[in-house]
């Protein structure tokens, strides 16, 4: 049996004016377990808290009920007071007789009655309270960034600048990501490489940042503050320490037929290659699928020409195991596959290209050295048509239901750049809506129309028909003129929808981070916690969370870094003790609780149990209290009633219900 003390606060006249506080204290003494009751002017004051401490010592109280204001106001105050007096802080309950009683009722008798009932409910709950102890877990002061694009680089730089070790894991041979493939950036039209390359260099030179390129995350275990991650460093076949990056091997390599990933397959590269000239690290990789040495055993030219002796055909994949306190996902995006959109003739004509391909065409380091030309015959185009929303905003199974967000702006950018560089080229944009929310964005789009004479037509394109003369016949709607338009074009550019990098599913599964139906990672709260995953210790940076342009990505990358730093700055994590726990004798390992847990806090273990003398191994739910946030979803979902929530247990809540309905 508990020894409970009830303390009724007057709150000046806030409570005492409508509630007969002395009566509440008097009634409290009739409740089971209550050995002490008193009322006082201001319980939250020093003197009030001292009264609680004194009573704890004198009456050997094991539980406290404070009838006062909302627990959202002073629960922490009273818990601390109890803790100082040697009582477990979780043995304190608050009966809210101010906000929920005295302030909203006028009739003294009625309000007093209600206050008594609220007091009874709190006493009934305290009778069932158990001392709870917050758990502690240590924090490894090192962060892992998955993905080395602008999002990953920015997050890494921000975390490293705060003084913490950061590892970046990048799948491709170089960091830089999608941004390195872009030519110019909106709305300022500065060259993408010019603003990205310094950041890449800074990241690679930073003493706190360690970059694993050509590597992938293989396995993740552990939890917030204490993740253990296996990273597979794929065999590069080139010794990173010896290579000087002179580039002779790439020049001499006789196998030059592999499609260049960096140039979106528009041209080819050698089997030993760096993706692009400014690659970091500037160490090539041998593509073993394309390399003659690996395919036939004969060749070895690269090894012969390498003066540093860096070529190592025997190199093997390496697994690195490292511990991290925080993990940031920055896996980025790709454009969708256009196989299902045959009406745009993407697979039929080389002159129908995606916008990302146009970026490469426009780029001086691209397949056409920056000259705008048709990829079929190299002729300069005279008529260009841009089609918006290709695969975006599609509720059928061919595309994506969301707006890809960046297309309106980059199309305006492309149209503007083309009109600027080639004034004799006519540019037509078919759009459904032009969406330009963002600083200086609408002005940018209007400039394309007003200053550069880009012809915007409201209406979607129905089909693109390649003509025998090599031209492309574009059939589209002009909804404002209520006309169907037939237009001969030399090139058609498709604003292809973006989708999260396909690898993100695998990564999210490893991290137990939740993912939505479009494969975007879910944030902990759509508005208030936009850069955190519901899974503690996992942070989201860039397009992996939702479509974003570069400024937004960088902003979010910084936000994710701050959240990660906030975690890494702690030596130990105190965990909320009000967590779920499973009764081993009742649990049947059905996995229902795991499915409703938004935090991935529940796992299953085979454990030996002693069920009334029967010893057997059973599959049982185990709650990781470092991850559990105490929402209680599992407690209700559990069909066998094995799950319960500490601090808000079934018995406690039922006791409150009973007290109220008594």
């Amino acid at each position, binding site marked *: 049996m508990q020894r409970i003390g009830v303390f009724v606060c007057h709150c000046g006249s806030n409570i005492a004016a409508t509630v007969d506080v002395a009566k509440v204290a008097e009634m409290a003494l009739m409740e089971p377990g209550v050995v002490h009751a008193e009322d006082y002017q201001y319980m939250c004051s020093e003197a009030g808290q001292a009264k609680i401490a004194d009573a704890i010592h004198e009456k050997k109280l094991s539980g406290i009920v404070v009838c006062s204001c909302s627990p959202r106001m002073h629960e922490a105050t009273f818990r601390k007071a109890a803790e100082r007096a040697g009582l477990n802080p979780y043995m304190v309950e608050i009966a809210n007789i101010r906000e929920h009683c005295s302030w909203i009722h006028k009739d003294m008798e009625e309000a007093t009655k209600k206050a008594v009932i609220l007091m009874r409910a709190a006493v009934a709950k305290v009778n069932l309270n158990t001392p709870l102890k917050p758990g502690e877990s240590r924090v490894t002061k090192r962060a892992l960034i998955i993905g080395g694009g602008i999002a990953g680089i920015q997050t890494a730089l921000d975390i490293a600048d705060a003084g913490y070790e950061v590892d970046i894991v990048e799948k491709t041979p170089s960091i830089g990501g999608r941004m390195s493939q872009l030519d110019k950036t909106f709305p300022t039209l500065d060259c993408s490489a010019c603003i990205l390359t310094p950041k890449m260099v800074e990241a690679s030179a930073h003493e706190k940042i360690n970059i694993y390129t050509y590597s992938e995350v293989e396995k993740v275990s552990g939890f917030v503050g204490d993740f253990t991650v296996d990273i597979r460093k794929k065999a590069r076949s080139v010794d990173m320490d010896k290579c000087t990056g002179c580039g002779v091997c790439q020049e001499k390599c006789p196998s030059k037929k592999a499609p260049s990933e960096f140039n979106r397959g528009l041209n080819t590269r050698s089997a030993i290659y760096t993706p692009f000239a400014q690659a970091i690290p500037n160490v090539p990789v041998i593509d073993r699928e394309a390399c003659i040495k690996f395919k036939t055993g004969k060749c070895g030219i690269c090894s012969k020409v390498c003066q540093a002796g860096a070529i190592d055909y025997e190199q093997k994949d390496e697994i690195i195991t490292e511990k991290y306190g925080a993990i940031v996902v920055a896996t980025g995006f790709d454009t969708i596959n256009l196989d299902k959109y045959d*009406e745009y003739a993407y697979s039929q004509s080389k002159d129908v290209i995606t916008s990302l391909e146009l970026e490469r065409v426009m780029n001086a380091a691209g397949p056409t050295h920056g000259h705008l030309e048709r990829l079929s015959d190299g002729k300069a185009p005279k008529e260009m048509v841009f089609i918006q*929303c290709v695969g975006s*905003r*599609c*509720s*059928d199974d*061919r*595309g994506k239901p969301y707006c890809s967000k960046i297309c309106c702006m980059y199309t305006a950018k492309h149209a503007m750049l083309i009109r600027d560089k080639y004034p004799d080229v006519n540019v037509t944009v078919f759009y*459904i809506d032009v969406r330009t929310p963002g600083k200086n964005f609408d002005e940018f789009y209007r400039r394309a129309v007003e200053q550069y004479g880009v012809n915007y037509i*409201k*209406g*979607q*394109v*129905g*089909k693109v028909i390649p003509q025998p003369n090599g031209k492309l016949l574009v*059939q*589209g*709607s*002009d*909804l404002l003129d*209520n006309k*169907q*338009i037939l237009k001969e074009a030399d090139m058609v550019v498709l604003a292809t929808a973006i989708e999260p990098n396909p690898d993100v599913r695998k990564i999210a599964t490893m991290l137990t981070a939740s993912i939505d139906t479009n494969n975007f990672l879910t944030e902990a709260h759509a508005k208030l916690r936009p850069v955190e995953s519901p899974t503690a210790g996992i942070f989201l940076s860039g397009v992996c969370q939702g479509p974003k342009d570069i400024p937004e990505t960088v902003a979010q990358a910084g936000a994710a870094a701050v959240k990660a730093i906030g975690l890494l700055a702690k030596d130990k994590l105190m965990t909320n003790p009000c967590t779920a726990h499973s009764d081993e004798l009742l649990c049947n390992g059905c996995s229902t609780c795991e499915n409703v847990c938004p935090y991935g806090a529940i796992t299953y273990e085979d454990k030996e149990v002693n069920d009334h003398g029967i010893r057997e191994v059973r599959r049982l739910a185990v709650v990781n209290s470092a991850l559990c946030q105490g929402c209680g979803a599992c407690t209700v979902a559990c069909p066998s009633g094995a799950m319960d929530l500490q601090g808000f247990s079934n018995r406690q809540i039922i006791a409150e219900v009973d007290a109220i309905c008594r």
Partner: protein
Amino acid sequence: MGAKKKQAEMIEEISGVNPLKCMKCGKCSATCPSYNEMDIKPHQFVSYVINEDVESLVNSKSLWKCLSCFACVERCPRDVKPGKLIDAARQMVVRKREQNYLTPDEIPELLDPELPQQLLVSAFRRYRR
């Protein structure tokens, strides 16, 4: 319920189309081979149904100019299927002639030289087993 609303609901029921899903992109009109022959264009069908003006749709030239090629149905990004709407409007006309259903045996008798062939085609499409 007004007769107009009833008609509009009937169109929605027969076609199985929710016209509110339309985002007014105009891809249906962009893709329509009979566009120039039509007085009410494919992208306008939905607004006639939403505005409960089925009468105009039923009396339009478009009703008989639609080839039922279903290009708009295939390419509509929002699953709105304007072709099915016009198909449903045609159904209503046929039903008004007290022909609620067709069986293959009845068709030879019904063959009316003025009846557009596409009506038969779409009727078959609708009633195929």
